[in-house]
């Protein structure tokens, strides 16, 4: 990998990213200054509920938000600033160095085009491969994502394949550009439980083999914990906690992280009542004084209502945006 003078292990460095939408003449801020860093080859999980900003962060990194959005901050990828980059320049990176796969493979694929030619498109665009060379690479990619009988399947249309197979095709397309960073947005949500396990194993294996970094976005803590080294918890447009996976699941500190963990029914112990987080997430763009979680928090104090807590380091690799006294 080419790397400049910056810290060679940092692949992506997002600083103070803010996103606001124009809506009826008003500006609604949905992302409130997110900073995060992804190292080369790292596997990071991003967890949060719908509307917390976990997907939009990445859409803005890839310049996929429409004209009516206002993005500020800085996104440095391999030492290069992405925000404000022209579309032509961005297309050298988008889909090539940074690839993304989405929740529902059947709506991301072109239903009227054979899957082989959809992959060929990425290969031609990103690596200039055509003809026999491209065909050989397509077979290789389909093999890599463990699609059996690749020769025959490359001529299939998406509707002839199952959801799990289509998601494998999406992964193959994402890998076609040999990305340094793969963003998987809810990659298994639309899939069956047994197939979900297969896809997670596949993503994990590919990451280890290719050395690319992987960002997995999910609302499912189980999925995140399986393939991520580090977990970021987002709530209402901010990162509220960041920790190594093991630490987060055993020593989460933010009341929201704790609530998310407790709200999941346990499989091996009998619980009569599930712990819930009362209320619901604030509406996008709703201005909240102080901590955005205050209305739902059991530990809220007066000062929580006045100022929003900043992310601070509480242990090695563990950051927290909460002023609560730490549990021992």
């Amino acid at each position, binding site marked *: 990998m080419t790397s400049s003078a910056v810290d060679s292990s940092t692949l992506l460095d997002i600083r103070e990213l803010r996103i606001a939408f124009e809506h009826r003449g008003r500006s609604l801020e949905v992302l409130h200054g997110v900073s995060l860093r992804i190292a080369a080859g790292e596997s990071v999980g991003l967890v949060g509920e719908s509307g917390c900003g976990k997907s939009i962060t990445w859409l803005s990194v890839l310049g996929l938000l429409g004209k009516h959005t206002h993005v500020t901050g800085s996104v440095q990828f391999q030492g290069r600033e992405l925000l404000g980059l022209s579309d032509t320049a961005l297309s050298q990176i988008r889909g090539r160095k940074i690839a993304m796969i989405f929740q529902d493979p059947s709506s991301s694929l072109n239903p009227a085009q054979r899957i082989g030619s959809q992959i060929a498109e990425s290969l031609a665009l990103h690596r200039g491969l055509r003809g026999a060379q491209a065909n050989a690479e397509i077979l290789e990619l389909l093999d890599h994502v463990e699609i059996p009988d690749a020769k025959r399947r490359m001529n299939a249309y998406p509707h002839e394949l199952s959801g799990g197979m289509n998601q494998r095709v999406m992964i193959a397309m994402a890998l076609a550009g040999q990305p340094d960073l793969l963003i998987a947005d809810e990659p298994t949500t639309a899939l069956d439980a047994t*197939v979900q396990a297969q896809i997670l194993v596949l993503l994990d294996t590919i990451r280890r083999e290719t050395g690319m970094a992987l960002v997995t976005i999910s609302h499912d803590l189980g999925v995140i914990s399986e393939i991520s080294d580090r977990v970021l918890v987002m709530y209402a447009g901010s990162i509220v906690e960041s920790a190594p996976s093991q630490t987060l699941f055993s020593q989460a500190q933010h009341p929201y992280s704790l609530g998310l963990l407790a709200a999941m029914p346990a499989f091996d112990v009998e619980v009569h009542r599930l712990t819930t987080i009362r209320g619901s997430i604030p509406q996008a763009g709703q201005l909240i004084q102080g901590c955005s979680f205050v209305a739902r928090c059991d530990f809220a104090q007066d000062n929580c209502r006045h100022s929003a807590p900043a992310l601070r380091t509480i242990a090695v690799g563990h950051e927290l945006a909460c002023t609560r006294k730490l549990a021992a």
Partner: protein
Amino acid sequence: MTALLKVHNLHRHFAVEGKNEWLAGKSILRAVDGVTLSVQRGKTLGLVGESGCGKSTMAKLVLGLIPATAGTVEFDGKPVTAKRNQAWRAARRHMQMVYQDPLGALDRRLTALEQVTEPLLIHDKQGEIKPTVAAKTMMRAVGLTDNLFERYPHELSGGQRQRVVLARALVLKPSLLVCDEPISALDVSVQAQVINLLDDLRQQMNLTMLFISHDLRVVRHICDEVAVMYLGRIIEQGYAKDVLSHPAHPYTQALISAISTPGMKHTKVSSGRIILKGEPPNPVDVPTGCSFHPRCALATAHCKTSAPVVTRIGDGHTVSCHLHTMIHHGASS
């Protein structure tokens, strides 16, 4: 105790146009293929399985929304048919359904209160209490506050919408509630709220529930009994604690193994877990013998040719698998 819902040897086959290469020659999709089960009054049965296994077709059959190809459904001692006659309409009010996607299930042009009032206007014309009063009582019971009554579905959050769907289903005081993936479309923190609510209402109203879900955690939490479905058949059935703690069928074992546990070492992906080969086969082209054999790590030659029969392996715990037939009957048939 008596069974409120009895399903006997139920079949539902769909004719499929066999035009493309995958379906050529075959033209029958056996969505439900010989299901027998019963739900006791006041109990909850979880119906578990992956997409395409026939869970949702079961829901429609049980409610008499589509006719069965063969077999019977009995609700409260009376047969349920899909003939839209007086008896069918009379039975409707006692059996209600909650769907996965609340926004799709609600009428976007009606306010929350109008949606919940509507069943009363249809079924309860001679009711003693004014429909809107009864509807409001139910809405408060499911945790909707008065300020939400006049809102339209798009003005409500996902959790609130699902509460409206629940209120609408329960306002007629049904005895059977069929829930088809009732929480899959909701956020994690809201899922827990809705599960707790279902749990409370079930006890307060002595509801019998058929709870269709692919989420074994939730099933474990809320169901008394569990039936595991694969390609239109029940392959294992029993009390939730037996089936989920001591799964006997290799498929059930794989489903349970696929549950991810937060906090488990993230290397779990590569260790100890059963990862099934392949995907559920196309229900139009069901494998011979035991339909699970192409994906089963323990399959023998016998499994490829002969279909296993239902074997009792414990108190109310049955399984359809040759591994157990052999243990219990010595040799296989």
